[in-house]
């Protein structure tokens, strides 16, 4: 999805009153699956739009989004470590590190 499509989806979800988070790759080092600025929307029911990198760290971002939406209500900066070079702990082998900002976008 392009940035424009992501932002239009944010507006749409907000006016429909859907609880959702916007996750944005705000920093990256080493080899990462997505570039700085990549975005993903995570809704409270687990629906996602866009991508911040497929399997690499995306589950971490989804759980942060649910924590933000359902528990804390405050934005979070999530660090995703992709330096498990042999994939021994679950396969995040891209080799870099990403920082992803996860913030609620619901109205009010």
């Amino acid at each position: 999805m392009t940035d424009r499509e992501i932002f239009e989806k944010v507006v749409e979800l907000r006016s429909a009153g859907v609880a959702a988070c916007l996750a944005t790759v705000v920093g990256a080092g080493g080899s990462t699956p997505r570039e700085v600025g990549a975005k993903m929307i995570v809704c409270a029911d687990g629906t996602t739009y866009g991508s911040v990198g497929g399997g690499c760290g995306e589950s971490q971002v989804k759980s942060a989004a649910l924590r933000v939406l359902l528990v804390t209500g405050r934005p979070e900066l999530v660090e995703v470590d992709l330096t498990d070079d042999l994939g021994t702990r679950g396969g995040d082998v891209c080799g870099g590190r990403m920082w992803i900002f996860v913030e609620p976008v619901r109205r009010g």
Partner: protein
Amino acid sequence: MATDLWERVCDLLERGRSACLATVVASEDEDRVGQRLLVLPDGEVEGTTGLPELDRQIARAACDALADLRRGWVVIPEGHRVFLDILAPEASVLVCGAGHIAVPLAEFARAVGFGVTVLDDRPDFAHPDRFPGCRVIARDFREALAEMPLGPHWYVVVITRGHEHDAECLEAVLRRPTAYVGLIGSRRRVGFVLEMLGRQGIPPDRLQDVFTPIGLPIGGESPAEIALSIVSELVCVRRKGPGQARLLRRVVEEGS
């Protein structure tokens, strides 16, 4: 943040404007996290972090980031980490000609993040059912192109069914700045079209901008393979510039 900042962002993007969306993503002052400003290229600022001095410093950094289209985070004293996101007009592909290559081409271009518009004068071909997620225009080429908001973020692929239509499209497109123009066709057909455009007053250096043969040389033969090679070329031009795309072709041709 102001409840309507997201709408404002969409509105700017729709109008093809640039801006920097600056967000405090970490701070020693927890209440600042998530606060943001929208900074326009002329320095105009919308929104506030609640701290006027911080707003001023963010606006300065945002203007610098906008000037060289650099996305990333900066640290602003004391202890605020601010992400500067560059909002720029969406890279858009215009496909002139809605034939059999256009279908996979539009699909692949969408998948790699381009907005896609498809134009043909045959309503059966330029039909929304054939191009999900795309803007589809069924109209005379010349008339439609006269109203298209083409500009430096547009990638134009000319694959119409005949050389008169190719010439008609290129004639309209080459008079305006674009990121990319590519023309499909045999050497003979392409030579004929370019020569005709030269006679119509298109400057030679602009004619040389036209990518033809079109697409990276991956040996594609089927419509989907050809579409893939064209979209690969669009990605290469977007990420590394037109010089790199031409170099790739030259290296392959010289090596064979």
